[in-house]
């Protein structure tokens, strides 16, 4: 069986699944719109949690939050299920496919065979849509891929029951109820306000405060940890910022695209101006990545380089602080 499902590639997997499921149900919603209304943008630094032997840096909110916030703000009801037993999980998936209902799945990346080896880490918050089954083969729409792909029953079970942090536990989700007409205006304003609040929050681990904290640490790491560890941490920052799914510049370009679309929809010219500024901020993040990569490529231990990129990060933090204070007043 195969559901008539249109696969659209997206930058980020969660936005892409939501956008594709919405489109399947007759609601044209773009990826940036999902990301913006779902308040996906963030910066967070969690030095006490280690992934791949480096602290956690993230440019986006926790997995699942984007869809939940988006759904709540536009009035879509989402059904979510997790399972203990892989067999029950498979049966429930098959039932949905029989009912012509494509479902979103949370999966682990490590056993995702169509990814290159180098990209297969124990990361459990990837998202995809299953839209059909042919004997022992499931038809997969993975939003970060250009085209649809397939997984066998066994391969799919392995990624659905990956273990470790954020273990998916067979997690499936799909929208079950929709509003009569999609009202985006209010949802957009709510989404923007939430992001502004997050980014300027008075806590050290999120928003511009977290960026300043990282900048400070970059100055201290070379002495405290040595060049090798420092460079590994810098590499982690760049990977989180630029790896598949960010759309470039740590999600800043997707957010700029959202502001442009929102500005037109709300007839708010100020948002168009702010969209341009966000693009420039994204460019600054890209410059930061280029200079950071230069350091760990040359393995130079000179402190000058570290101080220089710390300054860059401080500048970005200052700029984003001003940006989100202005954005808050613009809606």
């Amino acid at each position: 069986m195969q559901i008539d499902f249109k696969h659209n590639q997206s930058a980020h997997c969660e936005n892409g699944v939501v956008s594709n499921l919405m489109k399947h149900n007759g609601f044209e919603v773009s990826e940036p719109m999902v990301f913006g209304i779902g308040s996906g943008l963030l910066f967070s630094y969690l030095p006490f949690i280690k992934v791949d032997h480096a602290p956690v840096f993230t440019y986006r909110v926790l997995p699942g939050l984007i869809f939940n916030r988006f759904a709540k703000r536009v009035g879509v009801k989402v059904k979510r299920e997790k399972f203990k037993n892989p067999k029950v999980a498979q049966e429930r998936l098959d039932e949905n496919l029989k009912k012509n209902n494509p479902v979103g799945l949370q999966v682990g990346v490590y056993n995702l065979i169509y990814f290159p080896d180098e990209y297969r880490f124990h990361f459990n918050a990837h998202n995809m849509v299953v839209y059909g089954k042919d004997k022992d083969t499931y038809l997969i729409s993975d939003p970060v891929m250009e085209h649809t792909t397939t997984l066998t029953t066994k391969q799919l079970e392995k990624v659905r029951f990956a273990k470790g942090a954020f273990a998916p536990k067979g997690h499936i989700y799909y929208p079950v109820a929709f509003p009569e007409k999609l009202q985006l205006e209010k949802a957009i304003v709510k989404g923007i306000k939430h992001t502004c609040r997050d980014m300027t929050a008075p806590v050290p681990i999120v928003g511009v405060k977290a960026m300043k904290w990282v900048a400070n640490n970059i100055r201290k790491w070379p002495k405290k940890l040595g060049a090798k560890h420092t460079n590994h941490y810098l590499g982690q920052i760049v990977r989180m910022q630029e790896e598949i799914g960010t759309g470039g510049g740590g999600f800043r370009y997707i957010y700029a695209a959202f502001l442009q679309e929102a500005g037109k929809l709300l007839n708010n010219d100020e948002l168009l101006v702010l969209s341009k500024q966000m693009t420039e901020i994204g460019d600054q993040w890209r410059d930061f990545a280029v200079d950071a990569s230069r350091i760990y490529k040359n393995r130079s231990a000179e402190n000058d380089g570290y101080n220089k990129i710390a300054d860059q990060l401080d500048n970005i933090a200052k700029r984003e602080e001003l940006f989100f204070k202005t954005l808050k007043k613009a809606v």
Partner: protein
Amino acid sequence: MKKSEVPQDESKLEKANIREMCYAVDENGEYTTELSTGWDPKTIALDNAIKQIEERVAAAKRKVAQNESSPLEYYMELNKMDLPILASYVGIWKWRVKRHFKPSVFKKLSQKTLEKYAAVFDITVDELQTIKE
């Protein structure tokens, strides 16, 4: 970023026939998307991360050869795992898994426990007990 500036560098993704989507502005300042084959700064970051894993695998191998650790640690590193991930896959408490890294404790493990570990690493019990040169 302008659409024309979306990088098209060589990368591991490109070799697997994957191109990723980036957001960029066209010549009229309108947002659009463009596929990218890769970007050097992140390729370098990924290469470094992989080199680090290879170093960890080699170090674990050395420790096993010198009887300072059990093959479990080697296979854990080889599978890009750390202690919490391995513990959750095998369903054994972290402190017990850590204890199994001791060669003397590892030698006394029951067949059942060995099978559990072997299944996680997708190898046989024989392979689990020895490391290929």
